């Protein structure tokens, strides 16, 4: 091999070696700003929730437009795996006064990052619950979930228990699901919140999400799964999710949010919803959502 050719090859080799070696983390790693004080951070979260509440009027592009639906029952279409559970929530609009406590509790429970000034100006909040017309709106966990149908990687799937879940590590950030959600319940985290010091892990049970993936209400899957595992190991009984409460349900000062199991007639949720008129946002009504709204007596 002549000398020039050898040098060329060695040059290519070194260059490509360095190119591959420079992983993104290697180049762009900056010192993670760890926020030392959780109370300080909680205050910032509370401030942002207030800001989001004050902006809720202008930034919502769809109106809630509640229509009557029947009480959620078995999943439709049925799951390949049968389950005796279908978890859901009911939000009593006669009690709810739109105080926003649920948003705050949700943010702390799920370690939802803050957003930057420009983002909040654009209305890009990351809160999994948003106020639309003074009503808390979160993912409906529809049994005919349009977001899951179009997710290319399969990051968004259903559990047999009726939860629409996200595997954040599997998400490629194509934002197809977000475009296909009729009520914009899916939020895209545009920022690397950990690097910007905008996130704090209040709850060790919920991992912090990496940047640029879709996030949404998980119906506090960590609480449900922990309870399920507890039942499987130590209690040795059939699990129906009794006693579990989502963070928003636990935090609601008016007890307007009830979490429970739609398929268990004994559950608190069914008891609350029975005899009431059940509503869902019009865009979701034909998708069989698990999260519904209650209004008035029947």
């Amino acid at each position, binding site marked *: 091999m002549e000398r020039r050719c050898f040098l060329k090859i060695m040059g290519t080799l070194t260059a490509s070696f360095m190119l591959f070696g420079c992983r993104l983390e290697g180049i*762009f790693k900056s010192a993670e700003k760890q926020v030392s004080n959780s109370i300080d951070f909680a205050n910032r979260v509370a401030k942002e929730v207030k800001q989001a509440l004050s902006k809720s009027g202008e930034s919502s592009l769809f109106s809630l437009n509640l229509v009557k639906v029947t009480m959620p029952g078995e999943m439709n279409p049925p799951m390949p795996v049968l389950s005796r559970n279908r978890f859901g929530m009911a939000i009593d609009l006669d009690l709810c006064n739109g105080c926003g406590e649920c948003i705050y509790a949700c943010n702390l429970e799920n370690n939802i990052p803050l957003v930057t000034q420009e983002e909040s100006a654009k209305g890009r909040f990351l809160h999994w619950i948003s106020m639309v017309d003074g009503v808390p709106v979160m993912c409906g966990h529809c049994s005919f979930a349009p977001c899951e149908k179009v997710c290319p990687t399969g990051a968004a799937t259903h559990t047999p228990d009726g939860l629409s879940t996200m595997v954040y590590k599997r998400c490629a950030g194509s934002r197809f699901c977000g475009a296909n959600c009729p009520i914009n319940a899916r939020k895209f985290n545009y920022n690397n919140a950990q690097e910007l010091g905008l996130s704090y892990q209040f709850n060790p049970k919920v991992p912090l999400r990496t940047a640029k993936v879709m996030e949404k209400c998980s119906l506090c899957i960590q609480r449900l799964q922990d309870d399920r595992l507890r039942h499987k190991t130590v209690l040795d009984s059939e699990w129906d999710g009794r006693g579990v409460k989502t963070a928003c349900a636990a935090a609601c000062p008016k007890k307007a949010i009830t979490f429970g199991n739609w398929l268990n007639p004994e559950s608190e949720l069914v008891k609350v919803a029975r005899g009431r008129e059940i509503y869902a946002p019009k865009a979701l009504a034909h998708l069989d959502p698990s999260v519904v709204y209650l209004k008035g007596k029947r």
Partner: protein
Amino acid sequence: MFKKLFWIGLVLLVPGATSLLYSLYFGPGAWTTDGFTFWGTPISLFVFWIGLSHAGTLISAVLLCLDIKLDRRTSMLAELSTLCSLLVAAIFPLIHLGVVPNFYMIMPLLDGRGNFSNLGSPLVWDFCCIAIYGILSFLFFTIHILGDTHRHLRRMYKPFAWILFPLVLWVHTVVSLDFATTFVPHWRGSFFPIYFIVGALYSGLALINLLLTVEGYRIRLLEKLMLVGSWFLLVIWFWNFVLKGEWYSSAFIFGVLFVQFLLVMNIRESRWGRGLISFSVLVGLFLERYFLVVPYGETFVAGVSFGIVDLLMILFSIGLFMSVFFGLRYRMATNLEHNEVLMGDVDVKKDSDVPVVPIYQVLRFPFLCGILFAMVFLVWAYSLLPYETFDLPLTGIIPLSYPLIAFMAALTLCGKAILSINKMVPVVFLALLLILFGIFYGGGSSQLSNYKLESANLENHEIPVEWVWKAKCASCHGVNGGLNQKFIREFYPVPQNLTLERLDSLGVDSLINVVTYGRGNMQQTVDKQTARRLVQWMYKLAKELK
């Protein structure tokens, strides 16, 4: 001329590339989106350029299929522009992704974790179709170029065109399904497949006309087709307006209105007139795509509002296309200009020395291979659906079927011939295989967590006492209460044998005390309640032992 245009392209490319890098680093937040619009300029650029790329194949393959004669240099240019715009188009979906390194998860291939992408998603169809379309267009172009010197390849030109003809339409249909399958009110439309095809062909015709103007000649047929396309598109827009009440005035003015000047003789005859009209069509069609992709685009902003990143990205796409296309064209000008077969003015029937075989006879075997391949692949994919809650309806498989068939059919048709001619092709295939292999085991490892594996709490009353016994007592007393024989064989402080008599003689209360506070060589630090449960367990074990 070509060199000048190439340099203009480069000048546009360089600032555009910075915006590309910027948006790669800052992610989708870099361009104009808001909390409700998740797709932006990259997707509109993608739809725009993929549309342009279809027109090239259409003009050369479809017109070939329908026995409409075009001169050879036009089809050459069309195919070259297909490849170049496909290259441009392929960049933008990657830019669009939030987590770019995860793009391999969209491929319908098993990865190292045993995961499979969701075949029911239009994005996966999209990915497959475009990948296959890219490969096949490349092969088609290769056949065209090599057909000059290799007779037997020229015979495959027309059958190959028949494979590509449905594929072109199919690919753009699948692109349209990205929109039509969603619940977004602005994208409501089961007529989108035809709408998108018409739009793509129309914009593609405009591009070809523009390129022909640059070349310095014109083809009346293509101009007429452009006029017809504008009318057809106008009716579809009208239907869209009737359905949803949406009307994009700027797109109408640039995209349709200006084209009507082709009816005026003087403008039609002038080179600048033709060029400007074709260019205005491209502008109009891009605006249409933009308003379509950003549903709230026109309601938010009167007219057009791009951020600087969006603008630079558009410039980048134009620059990349110009520099690649005219760079190649320049090289062709020096090498191929006088080649009558490739760059001839008219399509003279000189193929009489090529034996005429009925097309279906040539295509029969490749298509059978293709169908077999598609069936095997789809059954494999179906059997791999890893997770119980995935559901794959028939509709999720159909859009993938034809591209797979076409892929295999084209490979069987001309794979062997091309492999034997050019030694470079096997190397390229090897590289592709290596890349696929890398993807197969790709993904890297997830970051380790920082779980603290300290302070197990076994004193929870919910934990069955059996496990507390195993953890705290079984080392010496044995899992079944009958002493750990290995332990006492080795070491001298033999623990007490917990027979029923001994337990009875001690009594429950004193046993609980011993367990709680320890005695002699035994040290225990469980709480009273757990101790009580442990003693009960001891009794149970002792009874069982007896």
